[in-house]
C-alpha cells in the first residue's frame, strides 16, 4: 500500500501548490489560462491513480515482492559519483578529477572480479592506465573536437 500512498501525498502536495499559485487577476488574464491550472489537474490525477493503486493493492492478494539491492556495491557507486559531481566538478581540473574517479571506481568495484593470483601492481596499474587514457580522450574530445569548455 505504501507506494500508492506516496503518490497520493505527492499529488496532494502538487494540487495544494497549484491552488496557492497567484491567479494573476491583476493582469486581467483569462481565468482558464491561470498558471496553476494544469499542475492542479495533474496533481488531482496523480492522487486518483495513487488511490487506485492503494485500492488495487488491498484487493489483490499479491504485493510487490521487494527486490534485493546489493547495497554495498550501490552505495560505493553512489558515493563515488556524488563526490565527483558535487565535490570535484567545478573545483578541480576536469581531466585529473575524472581520471581519479574512474580509477577509484574500477579499483573498488573491479577488484572482486579480477583473478586473485594476479600481481598487486598489475591489478593497480591496469585500472590506472585505463582511467587516465579514458579521461584524456574524453576530455580532449569534448574540448578540442566538440568545442566544449570543460568545467
Amino acid at each position, binding site marked *: 500500500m505504501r507506494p500508492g500512498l506516496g503518490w497520493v501525498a505527492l499529488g496532494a502536495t502538487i494540487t495544494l501548490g497549484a491552488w496557492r499559485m497567484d491567479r494573476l487577476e491583476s493582469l486581467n488574464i483569462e481565468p*482558464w489560462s491561470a498558471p496553476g*491550472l*494544469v499542475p492542479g489537474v495533474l496533481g488531482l490525477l496523480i492522487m486518483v491513480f495513487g488511490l487506485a493503486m492503494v485500492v488495487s493493492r488491498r484487493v489483490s492478494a499479491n504485493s510487490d515482492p521487494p527486490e534485493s539491492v*546489493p547495497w554495498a556495491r*550501490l552505495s560505493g557507486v553512489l558515493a563515488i559519483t556524488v563526490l565527483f*559531481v558535487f565535490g570535484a*566538478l567545478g573545483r578541480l581540473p576536469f581531466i585529473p578529477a*575524472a581520471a581519479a574517479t574512474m580509477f577509484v571506481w574500477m579499483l573498488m568495484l573491479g577488484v572482486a572480479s579480477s583473478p586473485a593470483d594476479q600481481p598487486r601492481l598489475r591489478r593497480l596499474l591496469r585500472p590506472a592506465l585505463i582511467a587516465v587514457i579514458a579521461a584524456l580522450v574524453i576530455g580532449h574530445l569534448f574540448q578540442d573536437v566538440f568545442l566544449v569548455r570543460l568545467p
Partner: protein
Amino acid sequence: MLFTALLNLAGPWQIAYALGATLVGIVIGLLPGLSATLGIALFTTLTVRMQPTDAILVLVCVYVGAIYGGSRTSILLNIPGTAANAAACHDGNQLARQGKSGRAMGIATTGSVAGSLFGVFCLAALTPVLAEFALKFGAFEFFWLGLLGVLMSGTLTGSEPIKGWLMGLLGLFVAGIGQDPVHAYDRFTFGWHELSGGIPLIPALVGAFGFAEVLMVMSAPVQRAVTESIDSIIPRLRDVVQYWRTIIRSGLIGVFIGILPGVGEDMASWSSYAAARRASREREQFGKGSVEGLIAAETGDNAAVPGAMIPALALGIPGSAPAAVLMAAMIIHGAQPGPMLMTTQPQFMFDVVAITLVATLAILIFGLILVRPILLVLRVPREVLMPIVFVLCVLGAYSISQRLFDVWVMMGVGIVCFFLRRRGYPVAPFVLGLVLGDIVDKTLRRGLVLSDGSLLPFFTRPLSAVLALIVLLLLLSQVPAARRLWQRITGSQEGRPS
C-alpha cells in the same frame, strides 16, 4: 527534393559521419545497459555545434544503428542489447546454440535492412499525408494526442499500466516546472533562479536513460559472456524470398506501431513476432530457432524506427522515447516538427528520409563485414565501461549550456528513475511526459480560453471525440470490472463462454 537531400549526403564528411555514427550506434545497441535513447541523448549534446543536417545525420544513424546492434547480444548471449531486441532472443539464441550464430546474425541483418527500407518508404509517403490531415487539428485535438501518447506509453511499457500512467503524469508535471509558457510565471521553482528555465530536457533524459542505467547495471549480477564460434553471416537469398510475406507483414506492423504515439520498437518487435507465429505454417518452430520468427522480430523493430519519426515530423508528437529525444534535438537545431513542417521546411522531411536511407545502408555494410571485430566490445567488463559511460553522461549534460546545474539535474533524475525502476516503474512514459508536457499544457489552456471555460469542444468536435474515446477506452481496458463486462458482452454475443 529527395535527390537534393541525397546529394547533400554524398560529401566525404557526411559519409564519415554516417559510418562512424552507425558504428557507434551498433556498439551502443550491442552493450546491455546502454540504450538507443541514451545514445541519441548523449550525441545530441555532442552535436549541438554541428551543422543541423550533419547533426541530424549523426543522431538518426546512432538511432538506427542502436536498434540494429541490440540483435547481436540477443543472438549470442540471450540478452537483448536494447528492449527492442527482446523478441529476437527467442529464436536468435536458439539458432546460435545450434551452431548457426552467423546465419542468425545474417538473418537479423536481412530483417533489419528490409524493415528499415520499408519504414523509409512509409516515412516518405505518409508524413506529408499525415501533416496535411493534421492541419485540421486544433488545440483540442493536440491536447488529446499529447495525453494519448503519454497514456499509451504507460499502458504498453512495463508490467502495470497504472505505474506507467503515474510516470507519465510525473513527466508532464516536471515539464511544467519553471516559467509558465503563457504568462512567464514561475511555477514550483521555490525561488531558485536556475529552475526558472525549467528542468533542462536533454540532461534529464541523459539522467533517466544514462545514469539510471549505469546504476541498474552496477546493481545487477555479473553476466558471463558466452564465447561462440561464428559461421557464415552472409544472408541467404532463399530466406528473403521464402519469407517475403512475413517481411511485408512485419514491416506494416512495425510502421503502424511506430506511428502510435508513445509506443515503441519493443512493442513493434513483439507484435510482429506474434503475428508471424499466428500466420506461420511452421508454428511449432517458434522458440526453437525459427528463421521466420527472427526475421519478423527484427523487421518489425527496425520498421518502427522510421515509423516513430512519422508522427514526430507530421504532428510534433513522437512515436517512441528515442524519437522523442530525436525530435527534441531537431528543435534544438532549428527544425519545427509539426503540421506546418511541410509548408515551412519541406526539404527537412526529405533530408530525414535520405538520412534514414543512408543509415540503413550503413547497417547493411557493418552487418556483413564487421561482425567479429564489433563483438570484441562484449568482452569489456562493466567495471571499466560504466565509469566511462558515467563521465560521458556528466560531460554530455554539461556541454549543452555549460552549467553545473544541468549535471545536478542529470544526477537527480538518474537517481530517482533508478529507484523507481527498481520498483517496476517504466521510464519511457516519464520521458514522453517531459517532451509532451509543454504541448499538453499550452493546448489545454488555449482550448479552455477558446471555449470560454467549456469542456464541451474537447468531447464534441469530431476528431477530439474520437481521440477522447480512445483515451477513455485505453483507461477502461485496465479496469478489471470493465474487462469482465466486455468479456461477458463479447462472449454472449458470439455464443461462446466468456
